[in-house]
């Protein structure tokens, strides 16, 4: 018996022995698979850019605000202003939704600077706060000036 035949015989024998010795669960199983990937991302509201001008008219202490559009999926804006730069005391949500880009304050009172910011909104989501702008108000008993 040649060496080649000997190896062949031993291999076959090993296969038989292995097959008999292997428990059923050790046999190779046929399987197949495939996958699908879906990516979901939430948006980030774009930051509006705010500008402010004083209202016109005699003894008027109003400020007219205007800003750039936020993201197309926003539902509106939130304006905050007040005498404190770090903690504006007044919050206003202009009516009209995302396409409303102006707001005029009522006559502001007091003496000193007023600070203004705006954010885009979608439900509870807020865009980063816009640039902060300020106007100097000099107003007593509802009459005053803005500069």
């Amino acid at each position: 018996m040649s060496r080649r035949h000997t190896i062949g015989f031993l291999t076959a024998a090993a296969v038989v022995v292995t097959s008999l010795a292997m428990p059923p669960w050790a046999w190779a199983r046929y399987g197949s698979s495939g996958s699908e990937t879906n990516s979901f991302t939430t948006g980030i509201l774009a930051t509006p850019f705010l500008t402010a001008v004083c209202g016109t008219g005699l003894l008027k202490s109003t400020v007219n605000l205007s800003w750039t559009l936020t993201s197309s999926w926003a539902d509106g804006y939130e304006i905050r202003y007040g005498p404190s730069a770090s903690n504006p005391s007044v919050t206003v949500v202009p009516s009209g939704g995302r396409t409303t880009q102006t707001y005029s304050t009522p006559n502001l009172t007091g003496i000193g600077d007023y600070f203004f910011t705006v954010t885009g909104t979608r439900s509870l989501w807020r865009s980063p706060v816009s640039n902060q702008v300020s106007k100097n108000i000099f107003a007593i008993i509802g009459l005053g000036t803005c500069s």
Partner: protein
Amino acid sequence: MRRKRLQLALGLVAVVAIASTSVGVTLALYSSKPTGETNTFAAGTVSVTNVLTGACSAATNNMAPGDTASCTLATTYAGTLSGYMALDVFIATQKNLAPGSWTDLYNPADATNEAQITVSSTTPTVSYVVAGGSPTSFGTLGTCPGAVTSLDGHDYSTGYDKCYLLSNLLVQTAAFASGTVTFTTSISLPAAEPNTYQGGSAVVVLAAHAVQSKNNAINCTAGGTSPTAGAVCAPVAPFAWS
């Protein structure tokens, strides 16, 4: 002497020739032997083919509170052997990378406000859930895999905050002989989702797989030989998924 030898040799040749001829006639017998038997052994196949129907119902980027979207995957079973089919669900999630306090979009710790992710199928109609859990609690938190070990060959080891894997959700108790299962991945963002979810992301990978049922009767940790479709089927030997 030499001539005699030559005559003897020729004589022998003639005798051999005659003998051969007669023997040839004698041996011209009709004979037959049985036709050999041919046995062909062909291994069966287990085959699932995926067709991305594509198309998600709505944009899956720039999603906002109150938005919903769903995407479908059609998986066709076409093996010559019947097979059991199961679904693996993998989710990798990330938060807004901008400075600030943000939350991963998929966040089982906040089941009310996180992205509500569900997986279901038609033919058969099944909702896939963690047994005894919420539909939004897919997977167990684990290490984000690299390209070699992820379900879709993508490298999730960088760029993602947390990863979850849920394996072997049984599609149907009975083995498939053929047919197409359409899986749907749905996501909805609660209308009152807090601002901290803004800018987050979640990748959902569905991987359908099948294994032969012949000589591999189903047996699961939950449900034994009568497991529940849609629930995890952790195999009990001798049953195995691969």
